[in-house]
């Protein structure tokens, strides 16, 4: 309760300010649509229920989300659940790619001096390229060789999220102290034993924070990658069609759904971490 209460307080403040802001933001539109003899109160009330408000109220967004999540069949193009699942799958796929590639790169960098010297600048450069610029190219090129569906989006998601995994794991695999390493040296341990007995377990304290950064990035990557595909499916598609047609409610619902997915993703990482911590007697 002591943990939930502060969160609820902040939420209450945000929602109050939001409701208050929706009145002036939507005033001119409500006024234009109102009868000539409408009172101030009528216009104020109208700001709360416009079809395409500049700033939808929390109540409108909640209503829209409930309807689109639960009252359409999951295969319907209007079902938010359908789009959320598409994006979630692409993000998860991308996150697995980034985890695999990120850890593999870190292992290479830690063990092979040449990679340590040559790879890092390229990895940094890869992150300096705006994903908005590269996503359409990747999607279009892969589409031309017949690769469509989740894979191109997962690749973009992986591209955007592997970097924190790599840097975290490079640091983590090197985080053991000299004495801990000397100890294995006195046992004449092999490189692979040093990895499994020392480097890998000591990197966990770095992997989990890195995953918490990477998981929402994978989600962003998947959404961005959905934009240039002609907006077929996914939360990115909902955002794009929403902005085409000025459907602000649809945009806000998709945004909030993306935020919820990110919270869910970080929650899953937390659960995995808790399982590991239990096996370690209570500390990561």
């Amino acid at each position, binding site marked *: 309760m002591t943990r939930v209460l502060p969160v609820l307080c902040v939420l209450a403040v945000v929602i109050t300010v939001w409701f208050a802001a929706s009145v002036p933001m939507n005033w001119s539109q409500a006024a234009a649509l109102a009868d000539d003899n409408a009172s101030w109160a009528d216009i104020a009330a109208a700001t709360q229920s416009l079809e395409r408000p500049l700033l939808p109220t929390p109540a409108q967004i909640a209503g829209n989300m409930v309807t689109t999540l639960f009252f359409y069949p999951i295969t319907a193009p209007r079902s938010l659940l359908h789009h959320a699942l598409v994006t979630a799958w692409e993000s998860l796929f991308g996150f697995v790619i980034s985890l695999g590639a990120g850890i593999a790169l870190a292992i290479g960098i830690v063990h092979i001096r040449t990679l340590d010297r040559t790879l890092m600048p390229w990895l940094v450069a890869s992150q300096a390229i705006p994903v908005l610029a590269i996503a359409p190219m990747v999607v279009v090129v892969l589409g031309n060789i017949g690769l469509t569906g989740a894979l191109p989006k997962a690749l973009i998601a992986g591209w955007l999220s592997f970097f924190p995994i790599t840097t975290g794991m490079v640091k983590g695999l090197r985080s053991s*102290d000299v*004495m*801990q390493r*000397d*100890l*294995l*040296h*006195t*046992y*004449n*341990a092999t490189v692979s*034993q040093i990895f499994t*007995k*020392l480097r890998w*377990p*000591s990197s*966990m304290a770095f992997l989990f924070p890195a995953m918490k950064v990477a998981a929402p990035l994978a989600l962003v990557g998947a959404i961005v990658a959905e934009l240039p595909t002609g907006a077929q499916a996914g939360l990115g598609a909902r955002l794009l069609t929403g902005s085409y047609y000025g459907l602000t409610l649809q945009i806000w619902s998709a945004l909030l759904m993306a935020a919820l997915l990110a919270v869910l993703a970080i929650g899953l990482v937390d659960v995995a971490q808790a399982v590991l911590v239990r096996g*370690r*007697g*209570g*500390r990561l």
Partner: protein
Amino acid sequence: MRAVAPEAPAWPDTQVLPREAAHPLESPVGETVIEASGLGVTFAAHGHETVALTGVDLAIRKGEFVSLIGPSGCGKTTLLRLIADLTQATSGSLTVNGMTPAEARQKRAYGYVFQAPALYPWRNVERNVMLPLEVMGLPREERRRRASRVLELVGLSEFRRRFPWQLSGGMQQRASIARALSFEPPLLLMDEPFGALDEITRDGLTLHLHQLWQRTGLTAVFVTHSVPEAVFLSTRIVVMSSRPGRVVAVIDSRLPRERDLDVRETQQFLSVAHEVRVALRQGHADA
């Protein structure tokens, strides 16, 4: 989070480390285990040369307990690390069991106890003790058996499921000694293992280390900067000095092989301690 466990009972002195069989690397009694001649290490850094150790001639026989004592920077830890193949000599020769230190290390000829316990925090005490046994590829049952034996030897049986951070400093260091003993090395190298502990804990551990050495017939090399500790434990004391690091005297202890803490009050003890102090001062004056 659980509170730090209370100090475990002292090492039970009825326990004996039962040796299964003679260690294959074990040399006959009295045979030279470690032999150094003209041994030296020079570190080069930033175009500067630092002589860490020079001209060390030393022979350590099987079953001896040899302490290396001296001020900071005298190269006592460096000498221990040379024996363990953790540092490379730049001059002279050194053999361990008649082999180069590297070969001896590859044959797992020694157990090493560091200044800090260096336990792996994600492993409980038992699994820390089993670490060398895992690396050496012993079967699971054998690992369990040996771990429980050495944990009993150091009085930590009840604490085998605890994690390092749940133990006191003294218990952690006992766990690290158990880990070094778990694969029954004939040679135990210890680098100021009790340096970070309070005096009461230290006294207890020193006595138990002495008893352990007596029962097992180990050869031990022990780095310390405490004169009473060195005199109490050792059959021979190697006094070292700094700038450059070197051996200034090797003092044979006249104390009986079997000792208890009361021996520290005897005239013999005080005279050996005096001899060590004189040699330390002499080394300091020469520098």
